[in-house]
């Protein structure tokens, strides 16, 4: 066990150095130069040099990278160049909002996809399967923007219905929260469920063709028992992989389109603005924490694999 943990830790350190070095290099050599966004209308060469120096652009790459690593180690994330807000509070504030925004859609999307995939697999080749597959294709082919705009018109602003707010964010009460996440959740489910179904259906269909399923049926097990007691546990590894590796996206990248169109101050919008503005402190913090989240998720996935599949425990 100690060897395993040591190996995992070394992997994590190597991954973090790789991720930060690559992203730092990309930002330094290909990222936007903020100097000219922060200058006034009639800058003098001295003012340009001053801003350049304040942004640290005059230092060499190694100095900048080491300084960045040092600050990350002590969790000194600095301040956003564009807004002046402390990056730590910016990320803490916005990632929680993104989590609250995306979690219901994430859970519902996966749960719904799983149910429909099982249904599809059970009726493989028959009309429910064909209907679900077609719906899944439509879901995958439809642009997120189109779904959002259509929902805003149909459920918010058309006629006198106005079931949900067109946009905005409030967590003042549970009801307020539900009202504001209803449409983003629906949009998220509609655009993501197709992809989930495609994967889950393939996995379940493959498992349904196994000998043990035929045996279970021969022993008189009903479809619910077969699906939930026998097939689902054997499909868990790919399902866990898909679900667990999506978690960092909830925490770090958010959803730019949902946040932009529904006016939700989450981390997706912050990330997008940081990329387009070249706001290095924010971007580097996001990239670093994405790396950390990935490492954690990898370990979580490993632990879950061993929990659901005893054979892996023996191998370890």
């Amino acid at each position, binding site marked *: 066990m100690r060897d395993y943990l040591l190996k995992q830790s070394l992997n994590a350190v190597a991954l973090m150095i790789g991720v930060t070095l690559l992203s730092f290099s990309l930002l330094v050599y290909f990222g*936007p*130069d903020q100097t*000219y*966004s*922060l200058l*006034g*209308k*009639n*800058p*003098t*060469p001295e003012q340009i040099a*001053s801003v350049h120096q*304040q942004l640290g652009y005059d230092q060499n790459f190694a100095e900048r990278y080491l300084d960045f690593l040092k600050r990350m180690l002590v969790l000194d994330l600095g*301040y956003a160049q*564009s*807004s*002046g*807000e*402390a990056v730590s509070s910016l990320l803490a*504030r*916005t990632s929680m909002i993104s989590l609250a925004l995306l979690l219901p859609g994430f859970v*519902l999307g996966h749960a*719904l996809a799983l*149910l*429909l995939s*099982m*249904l599809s697999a*059970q*009726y493989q080749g028959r009309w429910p399967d064909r209907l679900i597959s077609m719906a899944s294709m439509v879901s995958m082919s439809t642009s997120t923007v189109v779904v*959002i*705009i259509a929902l*805003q*018109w149909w459920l*918010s602003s058309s006629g006198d219905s106005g*079931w*949900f*707010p*067109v*946009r*905005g*964010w409030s967590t003042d*009460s549970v*009801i*307020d929260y*539900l009202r504001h996440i209803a449409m983003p*959740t629906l949009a998220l489910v509609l655009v993501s469920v197709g992809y989930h179904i495609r994967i889950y259906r393939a996995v379940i269909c493959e498992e349904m063709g196994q000998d043990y399923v035929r045996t279970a049926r021969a022993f008189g097990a*009903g*479809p*619910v028992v077969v*699906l939930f007691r026998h097939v689902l546990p054997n499909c868990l590894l790919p399902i866990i992989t898909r679900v667990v590796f999506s978690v960092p996206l909830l925490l770090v990248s958010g959803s730019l389109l949902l*946040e*932009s*169109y529904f*006016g939700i*101050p989450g981390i997706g*919008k912050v990330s997008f*603005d940081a990329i*387009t*503005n*070249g706001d290095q402190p924010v971007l580097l913090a996001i990239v670093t924490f994405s790396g950390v989240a990935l490492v954690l998720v990898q370990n979580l996935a490993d632990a879950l694999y061993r929990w659901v599949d005893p054979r892996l425990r023996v191998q370890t």
Partner: protein
Amino acid sequence: MLEKTNRDGQLLRRVLLATLGMTVLLGCEDRAPEQTPQLKVYRHAMDQATVDLDPAAAATIYSTFVVNNVYDTLFMYKYLARPYALKPNLAATLPEVSADGLSYTIRLRRGVKFIDSPAFDNGQGREVTAADVVYSMMRHFDPATRSQGAWLWQGRIQGLDQWAAAGADYSKSVSGLELVDSHQLRIHLTRPYPQLPYTLANAFSAVVPKEAVDHFGREFSRNPVGSGPFELVSFDTSKAVLRANEGFRSVPVDLAEEGFDPAVHGELGIEAIAGRSPPFVDELEFHFVPESSARWAAFRRGEVDFTLAPNEVLDLTLAQTSPPQMAEELQTDYRMRVATEPAVLFNIFNMDSEGFGQHTDPLQNERQHALRCAIIAGFDWQQHNERFYFDLGEIFPGVIPPDVAEFDPNLSTDSVIRDVDYAKRLLAEHGWTAENLPLLTFGVPGSITQRNIFEQFRSFMLDIGYPRDKVVLQQFATFGDLNRAWKRSELPIINKGWGLDYPDAENILQLFYGPNRTPGSNDGNYQNDQYDLWYEKASVMQPGPERTELYRSMNRLLIDDCAAITGLSRTQVLMWNRRAIAYPDRAMVGGFYLRFVDVVED
């Protein structure tokens, strides 16, 4: 077989029930009100977000809308008067100007207080004094502030640039910023600067307390401590919420003084605010909605009270464009104002660029002048206006836009009328052929609209004989990167918009003043000794016919020199809900009018 079918049916029903359950969960809502009903709330939608609330960074209209409402400036623009006219705000009166135009004495109102803040010793806001005004101007010159507004006073105020060069030590005074007493200051200029009062109405000049800057440090940009009509409640990437500053001074509205004209404003219900002291709403919300479809949907739903009508819905919004008239079905719910921006859209030639610019060899100079004039003649402003501005923009010759008092209505419009034959003739007469025409690189920030603007520009150039492969696009990831290319003089043509910072044509004419060449504001590196002489003479003159004539002469010189493909002022369709009593404006004055907005509940 029958048993299997039954089992299948059971499974199908269970799944359908589970799906239905989730759908019900999604849809459940009880229409809770969004805010306490007794509060008067005005919601203003903007097409971009405010990112920084420090007056020193108030370089965009989006920042000024918030900054002007949480901070005070010495002067402000009258609510309804057009052309724009100044009136005292934090100052008690307009400034007293010395006979030589070098000293401005300004007295402050007494009893004006900053809002309460932990930045102050006892947490309670203290009185605003002349020392705060001096400090607020000095900090623009402190490199640590990273101000974007220092250019307003750069080289203008005695000792200020030297104070910055000597290390920006706040314990040392600046000779040009004299404190006469606690509520009076005198500004000493290096040379006359008639635009100074305008700069003191600009959001950059908003007065901040030193305690707050020191207390919040970098995060001062998110923790405004001002003496304006509102104070900040919350601020994020989608919304800023302000509430009325309860301690705001009482200044009853004098409609006549504000420029009320019954013929223009009579229908808007503005008489209702006469004699009352602003602000009139309890809460002022700014909704940042870059996506035009979401902004329009929110406006139609009544979630915001104001929006600029997006181009995509103008055909639904307007019954006709000339003159613009709102569609009948919208008239019961909304009001509309069509306003020309005090700004210019133009394409400036870079006079340093190979092939296009000014040349030391007279013959080559003449050839390159002809090339620039041919490009100008080939540009179709009418089509540009139709394609990108819904035919609502105002096309005018030169660089002085119609919204400015110095605009010359009698100036020939030849320079904005397309003449392809003339352009071809000019090129032929000066020996330009498809083989020897120089590469014309068109730099734009990355967006579909900008790409379309380039494609249109290229089609115009093809018409006058420019080969397709010699009109090329260079896209930049951000506006900052494009700005860097301009400042480094890397592009032959600079397509940009310039919004006026104050209602004086000098603000645009300085873009062509030789000493302002890159990295200064003269991105085109235009150089003409006669122009510079006139500019220097006019820039120290008070407004009057003589100065206006000089401005117009400079404008004509730019046209004769074919310095730029110019120009167009965009027209904006401002729409607001009838429950709001307002006369919206989106010009350089940036949101100053919001203190006068009132709402009537349905």
